[in-house]
């Protein structure tokens, strides 16, 4: 009996661990419903024609996110017509990071003419489900008949400063692979970014 209890306890422990760790490449993605800067709710299911999504956790304030902002806009312009629109999610708590409030997200989306949803994730629920731990943090999701699956996790490219003509375009390379029916040759990368500004316990 004790052994069974212990085994159950261990399993619970593992499950909790798996949850906090978030998605790995190959995992099935649960749909979400988040408020966009136009105050409408957005889900992956709304995009009937899409082949998948470039989910990017990003924000107004992180200098790395800012450095990548134009590249995120360009990713959407290039890959939304091919079936992979960008879904940007702001993972930061507005109290912990006042520059990332809903109003300032609206302003930013308007002034930069975002052609993609810029979503609010109150209480970090989707951020934690995905396991995003920095901004910017990319998750490429592929739609299949069996559901949506993570195909790539990581950085946009290897050149935040955008000065290296020989930079490696990780996200684009993964998308090209997916669009030509392949699994991404490189499906996981790391990069320097900003920590998520978590809600502080009150």
């Amino acid at each position: 009996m004790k052994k069974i209890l212990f085994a159950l306890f261990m399993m619970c422990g593992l499950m909790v661990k798996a949850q906090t760790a978030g998605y790995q490449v190959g995992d099935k993605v649960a749909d979400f419903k988040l408020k966009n800067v136009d105050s409408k709710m957005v889900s992956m299911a709304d995009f009937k024609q899409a082949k998948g999504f470039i989910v990017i956790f990003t924000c107004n304030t992180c200098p790395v996110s800012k450095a990548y902002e134009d590249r995120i806009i360009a990713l959407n312009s290039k890959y939304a017509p091919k079936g992979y629109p960008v879904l940007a999610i702001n993972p930061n708590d507005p109290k912990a990071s006042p520059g990332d409030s809903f109003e300032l997200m609206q302003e930013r989306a308007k002034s930069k003419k975002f052609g993609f949803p810029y979503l609010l994730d109150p209480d970090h629920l989707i951020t934690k489900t995905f396991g995003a731990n920095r901004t910017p943090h990319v998750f490429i999701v592929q739609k299949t008949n069996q559901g949506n699956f993570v195909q790539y996790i990581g950085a946009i490219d290897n050149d935040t400063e955008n000065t290296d003509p020989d930079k490696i375009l990780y996200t684009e390379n993964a998308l090209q692979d997916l669009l030509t029916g392949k699994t991404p040759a490189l499906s996981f990368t790391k990069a320097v970014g900003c920590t998520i500004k978590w809600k502080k316990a009150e």
Partner: protein
Amino acid sequence: MRYSLFLAFFLFVLPQLVQAQNVKLLRLNQLEQRLDQGKDTVFVINFWATWCAPCIKELPYFEKLQADHTSQPLKVLLVSLDFRSKLETALKPFVQKHKLKNEVFLLDEKNQQEYIDRISKEWSGALPATLVVNKKRNIRKMYEQEFTYAELLKVYQTLK
């Protein structure tokens, strides 16, 4: 009079300026060598950048941690992940302005895919991040978070 002012400048002002500007480039191999040599030392290595607001907020705690433990085998190292091109324009002026007493380095590695894992497999790359190394106790632990002084002190006291 003019001569003595001149002399005073060279004797007192200039050395301080020069000292404050002393930011060294750091390869990971050099860091590992340093950690290997200081077997009795507890290293607290803070990875930060001048563009990272929470990093700047916690820098004084790392200064205080070192200042409060001068008689103990503790070494705080501040390793900046600023762009190499910002060494003269951002990092050195910052170090000078804030009169940082700890050793400040600029990480001189290009390949993030390689160096993030080499620093710690536990690290996603988010800043701020702090690595604590205590070779004597075989400890190498990465904290991908922002610290209060109380939290930082506790980590040091637990791992020293």
